[in-house]
């Protein structure tokens, strides 16, 4: 993984000193609340229901065991013994004290981490495929370009006060596992007819209040121009994005207002002038320098199949069930990637205790070259495990509640912190997730239902990505009471689509029944091997509506 040199170290240390001084001036009354807010936000610090919330950047989701141990230490020393992994591959602490945050940032700096630009109206943490570097369908490893983007976007002086937050995702494989269609900028690595590597540039996608699938603004951008082109997009957005209404300030609204052709024309015109002889054109030397940090691990040469693994699969039904869901193919023979689930029923999705973090750090050291990844589905991934170690790893993970065999299944719920923690929430989300998980605790049934993404957000900000859940649940406020709106048919990936709302919203206590009725309709209607979301696409929303609300006529009057 990328290791800091003296420049990176100096920059992060200077940031800690700067923020320490800003916090001191705020506490001394020299900075007003309004002045301090954007400064603390650009260091990931929100003021939440109970205490400040601190979001720490995990660049493109990659962590070393040493970094994870530090995150565990911070959870123990400065929080209540846990952290929450987010859908943008970061980690959040819910209980730090404002006065202590400069010290937390100093601890993070010791392990080459920070909280820079994890919030605020600036360019946020770059996200990518959690199988980067090991996926079989990869064109190039996206992490070197992601790191180059990270450095370019860090403290970019022109783009620190944008109209609104700005999220960039980068995908290096055929299959999109970074949701490039749903970001302010999505970059999808492609090869053109002459075999050159470049980027398909997508702009103006996003979730939130106005969910939109992004538009392709450029089919093929030579990778060396990644920064000059992003700069052109950002400059047009910074100058012309709306600033009068925060709900209309994202780039997607500008793209919609101008139309993609006109927006593209402006960007191309800006780029045409700005790119000439630009020193920001990426050099091969720089690419190679960064790429050297992401060399393949020192793999052993192993046979594709391991006899002891095959035997264990045959011997243990619970092991094979876990392997079926939580073990993923790897491009090297004899290796696999493993998802350690943070979705055990009764635990808020994405939460990990300090002890679990320490434990996972040990597992990473023992089984996966001391590295791990955070997935946008809020799980942890060991990317490089020998197949012959899988059984031992499974037993160890089980002992810590990290082996729930539900990746891709209904109970692998993606869920934001919601009303229990977040001051923006309309409704709680964690108890809904738990009630649904309890309802679907029969593993055989769960496996029979098959792959299903269920996402829950506590408000329109959509941190739980409910728009792209096969089933999406959104907390809404109805005269001060918490209600839930349900949509179906959303999906992520190359065919990303936004879900359709099925009808009037429900009380919290109805939610397990509502999901059960959606599943019953699916089971009744599905063709063999058809996924829930494919059935929705084939037969439409109406039968599901009828299944949930009863008679279709009544729905019309509801």
């Amino acid at each position, binding site marked *: 993984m990328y290791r800091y*040199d003296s*420049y*990176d170290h*100096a*920059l992060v240390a*200077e*940031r800690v000193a*700067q923020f320490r001084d*800003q916090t001191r001036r705020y506490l001394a009354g020299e*900075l007003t609340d309004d*002045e301090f807010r*954007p*400064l603390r936000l650009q260091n990931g610090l929100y003021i939440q229901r109970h205490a400040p919330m601190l979001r720490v950047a995990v660049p493109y989701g990659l962590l070393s065991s040493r970094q994870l141990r530090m995150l565990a230490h911070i959870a123990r020393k400065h929080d209540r013994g846990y952290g929450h992994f987010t859908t943008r591959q970061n980690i959040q602490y819910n209980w730090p004290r404002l006065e202590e945050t400069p010290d937390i940032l100093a601890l993070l700096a010791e392990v080459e981490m920070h909280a820079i630009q994890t919030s605020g*109206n600036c360019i946020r943490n770059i996200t990518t495929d959690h199988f980067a570097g090991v996926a079989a369908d990869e064109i190039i490893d996206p992490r070197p370009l992601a790191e*180059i983007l990270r*450095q*370019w*976007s*860090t*403290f*970019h*002086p*022109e*783009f*620190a*006060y*944008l109209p609104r937050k700005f999220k960039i995702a980068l995908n290096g494989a055929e299959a999109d596992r970074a949701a490039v269609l749903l970001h302010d900028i999505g970059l999808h690595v492609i090869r053109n007819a002459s075999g050159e590597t470049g980027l398909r540039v997508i702009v103006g996608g996003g979730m939130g209040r106005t969910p939109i699938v992004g538009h392709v603004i450029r089919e093929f951008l030579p990778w060396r121009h990644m*920064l000059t082109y992003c700069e052109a997009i950002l*400059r047009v957005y*910074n*100058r012309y994005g709306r*600033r009068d209404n925060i709900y209309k300030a994202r780039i997607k609204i500008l793209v919609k207002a101008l139309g993609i052709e006109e927006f593209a024309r402006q960007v191309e015109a800006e780029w045409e*002038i700005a790119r000439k002889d630009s*020193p*920001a054109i*990426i*050099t091969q*030397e*720089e690419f190679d*320098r960064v790429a050297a940090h992401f060399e393949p691990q020192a793999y052993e040469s192993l046979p594709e199949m391991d006899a002891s693994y095959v035997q264990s699969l045959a011997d243990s039904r619970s092991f094979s069930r876990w392997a079926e869901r939580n073990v993923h193919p790897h491009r090297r023979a004899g290796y696999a990637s493993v998802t350690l689930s943070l979705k055990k029923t009764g635990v808020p999705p994405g939460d990990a205790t300090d002890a679990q973090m320490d434990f996972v750090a040990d597992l990473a050291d023992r089984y996966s070259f001391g590295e791990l990844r955070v997935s946008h589905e809020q799980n942890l991934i060991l990317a490089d495990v020998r197949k012959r170690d899988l059984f031992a790893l499974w037993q160890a993970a089980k002992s810590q509640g990290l082996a729930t065999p539900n990746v891709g299944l209904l109970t692998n719920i993606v869920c934001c912190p919601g009303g229990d923690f977040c001051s923006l929430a309309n409704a709680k989300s964690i108890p809904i997730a738990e009630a649904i998980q309890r309802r679907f605790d029969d593993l055989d049934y769960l496996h029979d239902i098959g792959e299903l993404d269920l996402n829950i957000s506590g408000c329109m900000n959509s941190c739980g990505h409910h728009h792209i859940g096969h089933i999406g649940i959104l907390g809404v406020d109805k005269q001060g009471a918490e209600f839930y709106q349900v949509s179906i048919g959303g999906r992520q990936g190359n065919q990303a689509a936004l879900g359709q709302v099925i009808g009037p919203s429900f009380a919290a206590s109805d939610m397990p029944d509502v999901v059960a009725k959606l599943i019953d309709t699916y089971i009744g209607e599905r063709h063999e091997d058809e996924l829930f979301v494919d059935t929705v696409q084939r037969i439409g929303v109406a039968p599901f509506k009828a299944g949930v609300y009863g008679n279709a006529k009544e729905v019309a009057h509801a």
Partner: protein
Amino acid sequence: MPERVIRGRRVENDVWQAIGQPHGDATQPLPQGPVLVPLAYWREHRDLLAARRQPIGVWLAPADDPAAIADDLGRFSVVAIHFPKFTDGRGYSTAALLRTRYGYRGELRAFGDVGRDQLFYLARCGFDSFKLAPHHDPEAALASFTDFSVRYQGSVDDPVPLFRKRAVAGRIAR
């Protein structure tokens, strides 16, 4: 007491008076001495302003397009950019365009809701003159210009990104 301004990393008395929103009434006769006029005023009264034989400056609001003064830049002693709120970042792009695309070399001033925590970025985008909001102490603010010794990306102050310097340093080390 005269108003203070940071110029060339020093605090000085400010000799400029801004007229028009937000600091005055454009319908009144101009005061004596150097004045900063809004873009619309410049467009309407450029001959009158030239006849005054006093240093003249123009100030731009966030939505003003710097292209509108591209041909007149030689006539201004100061171009100022107004920040009604420090969170409105349009002025950073305006400044960068003035310096790079339109080649403006004279004094480029930030004024309005400007505080010390913006100085580092403002200076990088080409500002060299800063009139802080009244409750900010300009002397204390000078320290913020050196908040960072490392800059990853190029900008107006130094267009060469760090990666090109790393490459040079690496070659020297080898």
